[in-house]
Structure formats: structure tokens, C-alpha cells
């Protein structure tokens, strides 16, 4: 991987990390953020690595843990933050909130908080891409828990049958809500299910952005060659609770600590430093510039007006 690309990856992950750490902070202030705030801290390499392998026109379908996906795909931090705050200037006018933010401008077309609900939709967008003979793919993000939903099964079967240009990215962060993987399925690797649809299934280190990037790039090429979908399982870990209200009592402290040592952001940072591709000075500057982006986004959100109550009636129908 070129250094330039790798720095991009690093930058993307840093943005996600800062953005979400700010959300954690804001959640500690009572009534600052409405609703349930669900973060991907620790999983940034999946979002960044995947999206770095995509073109702007490629589509992503996301789930309840979407902030990373959206930012990595190029969404504007300001309007995403405003949406999380529920403000009128939010990218969905405050209708969506943190759980189902869609950013059509960057082809983050549909985000759904129904677990597994995005997978059939990804089949649909990929179908449209194939139907229109576009050189585009769809990436569908979902969790290990979602892989137990019927929708996963129906969708992977259909996508394989029709050789659709879709990449199923299972972000296996060990947990599904408060249940560990082994408490919700007996299979060791979700990727093993791909064989049941005659589809390639790949396991990658989800904390290694470069590995995720490579796997996605390969899968994308298969899609574009008309060879159909791939299931990529990214093994990673959720540093925080299911949502910010979750006290993580069920997550062993040493397990969290072990995974924090394998921090995906630090990993790529170390590699870049070792390769002499970036200096400590440049890192500081980058962090500062990103901190500013996030500060600006929060300020934008805070200073934005609430939607007027009657706006609730808009946008139901075309």
C-alpha cells in the first residue's frame, strides 16, 4: 500500500476516533444528546479500510453502529453531528437521529437500526448497479449478531445466485448486545456460512485497516468482474458498551485491555512512523486539525436551531 493511501486511512480512523470520543464526552453531560448513542470506538479499521477501497459512487448500507461508516465514506461531520443532536441542520433534518443516519450525498444510502434489515436492501442496491450495468458495488455493514437473522441468509443466497456486486462486511466485535459470540451461535467464524451459498468467505483482522482494505479491494474486483459477492468477516472488538448507557458489566476488564493494546489507530500510526511515512510532528498537526473539525461540528450542532414541531409532518411522502 502506498504511504499516501495509508495516511489517508490513518486520517480517516483518527477522525472517527475523535468524533466518537467527543460523543462519549457529550453523553456524560445530562440531556445533551437525545436517544441511544451507539459508538464504534475500537472498530475504526473496518469502516476506514472498507471505505478506502471504494469509489464515491459505490454504495454503503449501514446499521445502528454507523458513525464510522459514514465518516469514512466522506460524510460531512457538521451535519452528521447536528443530526445526532436532533437539530434542523442535521443531514436528515432531525428525523433520524443517531441510529439511522443516511447520507445520500456520499452514497451512504440507507442506514437501518433493524438488526439485519440492511442486508436485503444491499441486495437491492447491488441489483440496481448490475441492472444499470454500472461499474459500482455495494458494501453492506452488519454485526456478528445480525448474521443470525433470517434476512442475512435470504440475502446472501439471493446475491450469490445472481452474482450481484455486493460485499457483505460482517463486523465481528465479539458481542451482540450483552451476549458473547458463543452465546448466540455455535459457529466459530461467521465467514464459514458463505460456503452455504457457494460464496467466498474471508476472515480478516478487523483491527488492521490495511488488511481490511486489501480484502475489500479484492472482493470489489470480483464484483466488477461479474463474479458476484463476497462475505468478509472482520474480527474486531467493541471497546465501549453496546450503547453509551451500557455499563459493560459483562465485558471482562482484561479482555477490553487486551484489545485496547491492539488499538487499530495506534497500529497504523506505529507502522507509518516506522516506515518514516509520517513524523510525530505531522501526527500532532493532524490530530489538531481533526480535533478542530470535531469541535466545529459540535459548535455547529449546538448553535443550530431545533426543527419546528410542525416539520414532523414533512417528508413522509414525495
Amino acid at each position, binding site marked *: 500500500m502506498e504511504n499516501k493511501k495509508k495516511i489517508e486511512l490513518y486520517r480517516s480512523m483518527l477522525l472517527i476516533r475523535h468524533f466518537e470520543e467527543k460523543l462519549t464526552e457529550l453523553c456524560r453531560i445530562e440531556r445533551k444528546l437525545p436517544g441511544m448513542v451507539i459508538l464504534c470506538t475500537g472498530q475504526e479499521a473496518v469502516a476506514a479500510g472498507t471505505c478506502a477501497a471504494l469509489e464515491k459512487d459505490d454504495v454503503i448500507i449501514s446499521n445502528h453502529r454507523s458513525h464510522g461508516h459514514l465518516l469514512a465514506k466522506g460524510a460531512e461531520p457538521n451535519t452528521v453531528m447536528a443530526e445526532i443532536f436532533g437539530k434542523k441542520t442535521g443531514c436528515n433534518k432531525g428525523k433520524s437521529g443517531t441510529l439511522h443516519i443516511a447520507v445520500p450525498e456520499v452514497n451512504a444510502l440507507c442506514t437501518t437500526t433493524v438488526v439485519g434489515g440492511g442486508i436485503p436492501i444491499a441486495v437491492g442496491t447491488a441489483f440496481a448497479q448490475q441492472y444499470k450495468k454500472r461499474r459500482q458495488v455495494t458494501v453492506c455493514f452488519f454485526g456478528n449478531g445480525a448474521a443470525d437473522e433470517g434476512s442475512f441468509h435470504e440475502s446472501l443466497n439471493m446475491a450469490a445466485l445472481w452474482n450481484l456486486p455486493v460485499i457483505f462486511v460482517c463486523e465481528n466485535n465479539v458481542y451482540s448486545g450483552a451476549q458473547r459470540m458463543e452465546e448466540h451461535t455455535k459457529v466459530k467464524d461467521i465467514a464459514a456460512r458463505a460456503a452455504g451459498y457457494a460464496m467466498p468467505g474471508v476472515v480478516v483482522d478487523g483491527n488492521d485497516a490495511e488488511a481490511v482494505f486489501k480484502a475489500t479491494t479484492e472482493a470489489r474486483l470480483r464484483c466488477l468482474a461479474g463474479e458476484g459477492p463476497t462475505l468478509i468477516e472482520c474480527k474486531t472488538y467493541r471497546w465501549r458498551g453496546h450503547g453509551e448507557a451500557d455499563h459493560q458489566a459483562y465485558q471482562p476488564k482484561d479482555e477490553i485491555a487486551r484489545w485496547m493494546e491492539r488499538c487499530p489507530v495506534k497500529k497504523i500510526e506505529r507502522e507509518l512512523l516506522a516506515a518514516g511515512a509520517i513524523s510525530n510532528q505531522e501526527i500532532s498537526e493532524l490530530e489538531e486539525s481533526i480535533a478542530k473539525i470535531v469541535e466545529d461540528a459540535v459548535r455547529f450542532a449546538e448553535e443550530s436551531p431545533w426543527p419546528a414541531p410542525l416539520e414532523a409532518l414533512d417528508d413522509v*411522502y414525495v
Partner: protein
Amino acid sequence: MQQITMGQAVRQALAEEMQRDPNVFLAGEGIGVGIHESPVMPTFGLLREFGPDRVKDTPVSEAAIAGLAVGASVLGLRPVVEVMFNPFFTLASDQIVNHAAKLRYLSGGKSSFPMVVRVKTGAGFGAGCQHSHNLEAWAAHCPGLKVVMPGTAADAKGLLKSAIRDDNPVVFIEDMGLYFFPTPVPEGEYTIPIGVADIKRPGRDVTVVTWSKMLGVAFKAAAILSKEGIEVEILDLRTLLPLDKEAIITSLKKTGRLVILHEATRTGGFGGEIAALAVDEAFSYLKAPVKRVTGPDIPVPFSPPLEQFYIPDEHQLVEAVKSVVL
């Protein structure tokens, strides 16, 4: 005018819209191969005519079929997907209700989902309650959807064409009982707007609000009642959502009496909505209790005499009308 069945009318609408707009495609279980390869079926011959890229036979996977439509429509295609029998709507309902109906709202109006879900419904085929269960009231309770349920072949054609051109998700429900009897359908291009009810028979004494196959029952009852000097106004809703409230109220202003007729089971059926509208917005015009003639509150039974008992008929309607007129 041509005489065709509703299945054939649906087929014409599909074929014409597919010719008109390359973004229209069809998907469903056996819609191409046709389990019972038969010209009464609405997708008969379309695979041959439009090829396998545009007529997709799918696995038996209702959720994926509905999701296919959601995803394809947000990228600008106009999918028309089929739910084989209304009870299987349950299996597709997360995609239709939580996604097709809500994702536009959730996007703040940025995205749209121009898709049609065709649902086959109706008792009378000895298929039992897992094939026969009218659930139009479910869809009509979901903002973001439009719900169309035609009672004639001519309406079906014009409404389906509108549904396909509509930029919102439309649930289009076809009663299979209408697949077997030819009725007149205009030649050539026409559409019928969604959301507009139709007075199928004017009359001064009592308004019968109905939709879908029950329209035929209403006509039979009206003929009987007319001989006894009672003139029924038959208002065919055609669209349940958005509801043409004005048409209902206008008719009630004239007749002051209302009987609602639908095949679905009574409790929680969409008839309640019509009654509620009447007793709110047309209260001062009502001269008599509002009656509902509906399927009883049971699953649709298999055995012919039991199934016949289930389906509302003209005699029940005649009786209900008399009870409010006399």
C-alpha cells in the same frame, strides 16, 4: 372495449409500463416460470416477453424480495415485486413497514422508494387460512405507504400504472377472485389516480362503502334492493391510503346512511376507519347506525361450506342495508 380479467389487466399494466420505462422490473416467486402456467395469472408470458434480466424468478425468500425492491428503488429503479399470498406479507413486513415506508422520512426527504408490492389475496379457493387472510388493514395503518385495492379490471390497470409511476412505495392488493371473470377495460393508455374513490352506482338511500372483490357483492345486493325500492349508492374506495375522505362524506351528506362491506375479518378491519370518519366528520348527517358486513372473526376455513360461510355475501348486505333504511 376489451373484455379481460383483472389478472389480464394487471398483465397489460405491467407490460405497458415495462415498455414505457426501462427502470421497471419484476421479481417474485415463480412469476416467470409460473407454477400453473396459465393466462389468467398476471405475470403470464412476461418472462418470455421481457427476458430474465427484467423478470426475476426469486428463491422463496420474502424478506429478501421486499428488500430487493427497497434497495433497487432507492437507486432509481421501479421494482414491482410480488407477495404470492397475503399471509406471506408477514414475512416481508419488516422490509415494507420498517424500511420502504420509513426510510424516506428517516432521510429527511432526501431519498425516495418508488416501488410496488403486489399482493394476491382473497378467500374462495379452498386454500385455507395460511393462504387466505386479508391484511389490507395492516398496510393501511402504516404512514409512508400507499395502499390500493381495486375492484374491477379497468381500475386495476389504471391504478397499477399510477402505482408504478408513483415515487412512493405502494402496496397493491389483488383479490384472486377477480382473476377469473372478464369485465370491460378501455383500450390503450390511461391511468387512474391513487387516492380517489369512485361511485360505482349512484343511489339516494344508503351509501355502501366497499373495495376489491366485495364490489361484486355490493352490486348484487343493490340489484335486489332496487327491486324493493331501495337505491344503494356504491362507493368503491379503490385506494385505502390515502383515503378519499371527501368522497365518503359527500355521499353521506346525500344518503345519511352507511354500510361498510369488506371481506377481511371484522375486528380491527379497515371498516372501522370508515365508520370512525363518518361518526366524526359526517355525524350530523347520519340518520341510522353504521353497519359493517365483513368476514367473521375467524381464520378462513378450508371446507367448502365453511369457507362459503366465511365470505360475506349479498344476502348479508341486503339485510344490513334494510336494517338501516327501514
